[in-house]
């Protein structure tokens, strides 16, 4: 033997057979040791090829556990796959496809897998019964946060998640088809082929990397040929059709309403790293007219004492490892079966050269087939009553029909406990599975007409039934989707029906606290019995109390055994006991796949204002306002902090002129002969009395009487109004207008057009704003006589560029807003700044805008918080009494007219150097900080360079009667307690003369 072959030898690999590529040896690492496998292997099969069964420790008792299954239902063999940022905990070794250099670590053990300190939990098992946490960590309550929870968290959990951001990319994609077939076993392939031949658009999803399902592990024949040949033939036929799409490595994890399915395609999980420009996983949203669920069945373990040692495997998994992966999982085996499919495992083991020491079947008679089973000892009427072996099975105790016990040495015990249809998807839409006594299993309940189930998933077991049922389901699905049926003879199967006989949900006579039902969560038969004795008789209660089926495998292997035991101990049938509900996802879905590309800054679109580029060149600091990025302030030379910049900007507006991009305000045009009627209905104040060329402040309420939004309404034509909304409420207000029109007043002749992005709108504010604008307008008279406060005009600027000019002020100064088509925004602000700087112009951002409006007492987001009324805001004069409008009727509610309601006031600190903070509560001086003494709260607080100290806006009970009084602004969260004086909302130019000048 050369060193090379010695190094790559796989002692349990068979010399021939299997769907692996022996020509290539793939190195991989498990718990730091290097091994070799082949392309076509999973991590589990590669480990077994190297004789490794022990792959993990159980969750609660840290018992050594081995590979149980060969598919996604695996409860035991969970590993941490990969390292660093790609480390992925709780990965099932049975579905992790081997790639060169794969690195995996066992989890839930310390210091090593073979020697685990926490295994003492197993010795202490009697004190960890069902409901242990509920019973133990009860009191004292103060211990919960500091002691119990950290303790439980350290002991619990399996693998460790990566701590770095995920370096891979993911995407979401959509697919539409006539027929979706889920699963590519015999039934699924037959269904897909039948549907495809009728001309339907077919999508076939297979979670494995190979099509074939159980056929990959069988020696059955179809149409006189090996089954794999038939698989290849169908695969080829499907691949040749342009209307068929086959998605391998794709798990359909959820069925949703109206044919919508969620699926995840593991595009690059079988590679060390995703290739450039390739995603790691793809989330498919598949919309199908008809769905054929052909997900097969999952073999059920047998519950008996010590049924969880490494080396105890499902009989179907043993077949899979022998036939598909060419591995002999043990040299000396015992097969324990209550279902005749176990005989195929006996045959497979014998073919692989293993000795089958005993076949144990609690049923009294062996079938015909047992007579030609080689030298295996067939023990009918016998059961397995116990096992031995710490890190690997060493022997099995068998009790024969006379009650005599014998011990047989064995390193492999295969269990054939019967089959549960993999019907999980069928219950995602609320259908309850039904118990079918004839096959001792749950079958799908009644389903919507667009969902069909074929083959073993429907409880129709056996290859022949799967093929026939697949052809039927595929043809019917295509027919229902509107395609002509093609008559298609089902292929002929040679295999024996899988269920020649089955023992209805067989259980061992004596079960104990080491008879495991849920392997992953360490729930035993004794736990279920205890839960029932303590009154948790309902299946849903027993599940939560014992945690049965609540591990990452969601009870795929444990569900029916758990129900059967609960049924026994509560004296009911399984049908009476019922089953818990299966919900999406069928198997775990990575958050990355769900998020797709919408992570970080790509979570939602970023909207840029028309002047963004210019502001960025001026080193503006931007702030996110919803989706928008707005300039918050413009740092100037030599300024130490943002406050200095904001102060400068505020002073410019108060003394010369400032310019601010207000394009983010929602802008809506309402036009048509009935536009005024609609707006009178939507606004609390009257709009239709506006003259063309005039505008006014408008207040919108919700139907429940609270303020929804405020803004301006300008009448730019007889039948044409231009509305602005706050930035935050732009979408809500538009939808509301559409509601009022389409639902409440559909007879009105009105069109509503959102034009927010059409206009670059700049606020030009300050005593010299008129002087500045005079330089850019084309001969338009800006004088108050010709264009007074709250006027609007359609004009041109800069020799013919169309613009709209509004005389409106959000700062209290003489002010205008000028709208130009969005594409002119950048040039326009550059022009204004160039022309304005000699006048002392400063651009200002949202921070200065807030200071200016708080000085004026104008409400904004903090005050329009959805809980305030027009009266609270001091705007009751706007509430029309001459018309109906949204929100009018409920103004009558007593709470709206309660004299104690907090109303809008302003606050200033008595000690001018004190800082005010929004969120502070208002208390009387000397009053204890208790909720019953609460008088209101502060909604906005800024430093006002105009007054030289902080000022705030907020709501205070009976505030209008308390102007000039002193109260306490109390903010325990930020340790702030300031004596403030109450003032009217408006502190600056309270008669509004400046804006009208």
């Amino acid at each position, binding site marked *: 033997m050369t060193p090379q072959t010695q190094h790559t030898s796989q002692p349990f690999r068979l010399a021939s057979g299997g769907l692996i590529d022996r020509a290539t040896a793939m190195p991989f690492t498990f718990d730091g040791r290097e091994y070799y496998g082949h392309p076509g292997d999973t991590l589990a099969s590669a480990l077994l090829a190297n004789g490794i069964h022990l792959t993990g420790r159980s969750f609660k008792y840290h018992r050594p556990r081995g590979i149980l299954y060969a598919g996604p239902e695996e409860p035991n063999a969970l590993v941490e796959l990969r390292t660093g940022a790609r480390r992925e905990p709780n990965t099932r070794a049975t579905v992790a496809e081997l790639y060169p250099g794969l690195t995996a670590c066992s989890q839930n053990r310390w210091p090593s897998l073979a020697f685990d300190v926490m295994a003492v939990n197993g010795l202490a098992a009697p004190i960890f019964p069902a409901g242990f946490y509920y019973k133990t960590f009860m009191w004292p309550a103060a211990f919960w946060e500091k002691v119990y929870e950290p303790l439980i968290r350290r002991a619990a959990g399996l693998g460790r998640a990566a701590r770095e951001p995920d370096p891979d990319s993911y995407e979401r994609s959509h697919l539409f088809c006539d027929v979706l077939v889920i699963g590519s076993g015999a039934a699924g392939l037959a269904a897909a082929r039948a549907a495809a031949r009728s001309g339907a658009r077919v999508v076939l999803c297979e979670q494995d990397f190979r099509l074939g399902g159980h056929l990959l592990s069988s020696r059955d024949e179809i149409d006189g040929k090996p089954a794999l040949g038939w698989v290849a033939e169908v695969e080829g036929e499907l691949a040749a059709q342009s209307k068929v799409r086959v998605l391998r490595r794709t798990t359909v994890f959820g069925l949703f309403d109206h044919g919508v399915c969620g699926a995840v395609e593991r595009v690059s999980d079988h590679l060390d790293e995703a290739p450039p420009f390739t995603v790691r996983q793809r989330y498919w949203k598949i*919309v199908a007219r008809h769905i054929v669920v052909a997900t097969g069945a999952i073999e059920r373990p047998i519950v008996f004492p010590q049924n969880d040692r490494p080396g105890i495997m499902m009989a179907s998994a043993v077949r899979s490892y022998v036939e598909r992966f060419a591995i002999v999982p043990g040299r000396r085996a015992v097969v324990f079966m209550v279902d005749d499919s176990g005989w195929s495992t006996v045959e497979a083991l014998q073919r692989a050269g293993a000795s089958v020491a005993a076949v144990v079947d609690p049923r009294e008679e062996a079938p015909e087939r047992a007579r030609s089973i080689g030298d295996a000892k067939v023990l009918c009427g016998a059961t397995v009553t116990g096992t031995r072996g710490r890190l690997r099975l060493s022997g099995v105790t068998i009790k024969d029909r006379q009650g005599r016990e014998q011990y047989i040495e064995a390193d492999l015990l295969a269990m054939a406990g019967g089959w549960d249809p993999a019907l999980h998807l069928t219950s995602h839409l609320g259908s309850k599975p039904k118990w079918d006594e004839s096959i001792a299993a749950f079958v799908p309940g009644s389903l919507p007409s667009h969902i069909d189930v074929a083959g073993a998933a429907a409880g129709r077991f056996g290859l022949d039934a799967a093929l026939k049922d697949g052809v039927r389901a595929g043809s019917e699905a295509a027919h229902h989707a509107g395609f002509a049926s093609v008559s298609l003879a089902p292929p002929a199967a040679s295999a024996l029906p899988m269920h020649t006989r089955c023992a209805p949900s067989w259980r061992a006579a004596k079960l104990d606290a080491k008879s495991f039902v849920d392997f992953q969560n360490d729930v035993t038969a004794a736990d279920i019995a205890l839960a029932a004795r303590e009154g948790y008789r309902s299946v849903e209660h027993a599940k939560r109390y014992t945690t049965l089926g609540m591990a990452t495998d969601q009870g795929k292997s444990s569900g029916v055994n758990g129900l059967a035991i609960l049924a026994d101990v509560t004296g009911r049938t399984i049908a009476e006991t019922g089953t818990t509900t299966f919900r999406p996802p069928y198997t775990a879905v990575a958050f990355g796949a769900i998020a797709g590309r919408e992570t970080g800054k790509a979570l939602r679109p970023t909207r840029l204002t028309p002047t963004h580029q210019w502001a960025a060149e001026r080193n503006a600091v931007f702030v996110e306002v919803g989706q928008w990025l707005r300039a918050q302030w413009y740092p100037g030379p030599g300024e130490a902090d943002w406050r200095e910049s904001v102060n400068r900007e505020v002073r410019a507006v108060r003394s010369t002129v400032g310019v601010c991009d207000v394009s983010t305000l929602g802008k809506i045009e309402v036009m048509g002969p009935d536009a005024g009627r609609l707006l009178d209905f939507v606004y609390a104040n009257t709009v239709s009395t506006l003259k063309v060329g005039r505008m006014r402040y408008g207040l919108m309420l919700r*139907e429940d009487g609270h303020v929804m939004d405020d803004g301006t309404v300008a009448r730019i034509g007889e039948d044409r109004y231009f509305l602005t909304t706050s930035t935050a409420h732009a979408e809500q207000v538009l*939808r509301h207008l559409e509601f009022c029109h389409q639902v409440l*007043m559909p007879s009105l002749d009105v069109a509503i057009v959102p034009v927010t992005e059409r206009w670059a709108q700049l606020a030009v504010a300050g005593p010299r704003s008129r002087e500045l604008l005079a330089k850019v307008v084309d001969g338009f008279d800006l004088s108050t006589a010709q264009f007074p406060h709250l006027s609007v005009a359609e004009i041109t600027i800069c020799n013919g560029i169309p613009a709209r000019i509004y005389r409106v002020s959000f700062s209290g100064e003489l002010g205008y807003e000028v709208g130009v088509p969005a594409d002119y925004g950048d040039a326009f602000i550059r022009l204004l700044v160039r022309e304005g700087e000699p006048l002392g112009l400063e651009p200002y951002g949202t921070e200065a805008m807030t200071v200016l409006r708080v000085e004026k007492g104008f409400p904004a987001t903090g005050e329009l918080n959805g809980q305030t009324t027009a009266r609270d805001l001091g705007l009751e004069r706007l509430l029309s009494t001459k018309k109906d409008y949204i929100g009018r*009727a409920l103004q009558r509610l007593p709470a709206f007219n309660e004299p104690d309601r907090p109303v809008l006031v302003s606050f200033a600190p008595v000690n001018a150097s004190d800082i005010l903070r929004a969120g502070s509560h208002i208390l009387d001086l000397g009053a204890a900080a208790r909720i019953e003494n609460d008088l209101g709260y502060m909604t906005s607080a800024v430093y006002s360079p105009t007054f030289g100290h902080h000022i705030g806006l907020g709501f205070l009970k009976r505030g209008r009667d308390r102007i000039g009084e002193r109260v306490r602004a109390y903010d325990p969260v930020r340790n702030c307690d300031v004596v403030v004086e109450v003032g009217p909302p408006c502190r600056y130019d309270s008669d509004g003369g400046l804006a009208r000048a």
Partner: protein
Amino acid sequence: MRLPCPHCGERGNEEFVFLGSADPVRPADSEAPIEDWIDYVFLRDNPAGANRELWHHTYGCRSWIVVRRDTRTHEILGAEPARSLPPPASTSAAK
């Protein structure tokens, strides 16, 4: 879910915004008894079975539509534009 927009055809529910039951009728008069208003604004039935509900095709044609849906099965029984339905009594408000 897939919703049959009368203008755009069958579309995914992510394009729509749900409002609630389409059954409550806005009282004709803001001076109507306050109980009628509370009923209209706040109180909703929770029917098991056929339900008429308002959806807004926000990321589509921006129509408000009335979808008839069975709340037990989620079966969609039909959809009409809200504006095509008989006007509720509330339009008197605009007189």
